[in-house]
């Protein structure tokens, strides 16, 4: 498991029903591409987060498949519709099988 992985999500705490909100996510992760070499010339093995999903009350908002060309500390910005009060669930899947999760509750204003 990559060390110091910390997801950060920026989402509004409240929204009006049916409103489209912007969500920004960032997760600290080295995203080792598998192309770099260490000082003795050996390839550093690939270790990246390969998938990110965002769901709201079980309904999918976005599902991203990532390749090695995504930068260190993968950042995503996208928009989601909030039909009712509930909870956003963010999930990141690591190459090594680890799963990182974060949730954000949204109330209806």
């Amino acid at each position: 498991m990559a060390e110091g992985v910390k997801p950060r999500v920026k989402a509004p705490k409240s929204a009006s029903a049916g409103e489209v909100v912007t969500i920004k996510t960032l997760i600290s992760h080295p995203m080792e591409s598998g192309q770099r070499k260490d000082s003795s010339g050996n390839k550093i093995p690939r270790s990246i987060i390969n998938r990110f999903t965002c769901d709201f009350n079980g309904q999918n908002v976005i599902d991203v498949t990532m390749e090695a060309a995504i930068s260190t500390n993968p950042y995503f910005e996208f928009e989601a519709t909030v039909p009712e009060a509930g909870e956003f669930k963010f999930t990141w899947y690591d190459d090594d099988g680890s799963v990182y999760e974060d949730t954000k509750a949204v109330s209806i204003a």
Partner: protein
Amino acid sequence: MSITRRDTLALGLGAAALTILPFRLSAATEDAIAAFTGGADVADGGVDLTAPEIAENGNTVPIAVSAEGAAAILVLAAGNPTPGVAEFKFGPLAGSHSASTRIRLAGTQDVVAIAKMADGSFARASKTVKVTIGGCGG
């Protein structure tokens, strides 16, 4: 030195080849596109790809894609050792069919976005990004 008719023809051919060249993609990129579209025709336009013209650092190049009515958008970097970048699939609660992220580019190259529309058709857009320092290590 005088320019002969033959020289002129050769120059013209060279110029024509140069203008065609940027639209040719690497075999790996073509394969990735074919795998995504299943060999279907891809129309130009209908996808917005926002990328900087010049990226000083190839390690983090901000890009944004958006396509009205898209079910999925595939992003490829034609000049990277592996062309795949990301595939965005939009679910029923997606507020808009757009997303932005930061990508790595090995050098100056074309970034290609292909959108799969809800009706099963495909659209594409590409943009050349000049990279000052490549982002793949070495």
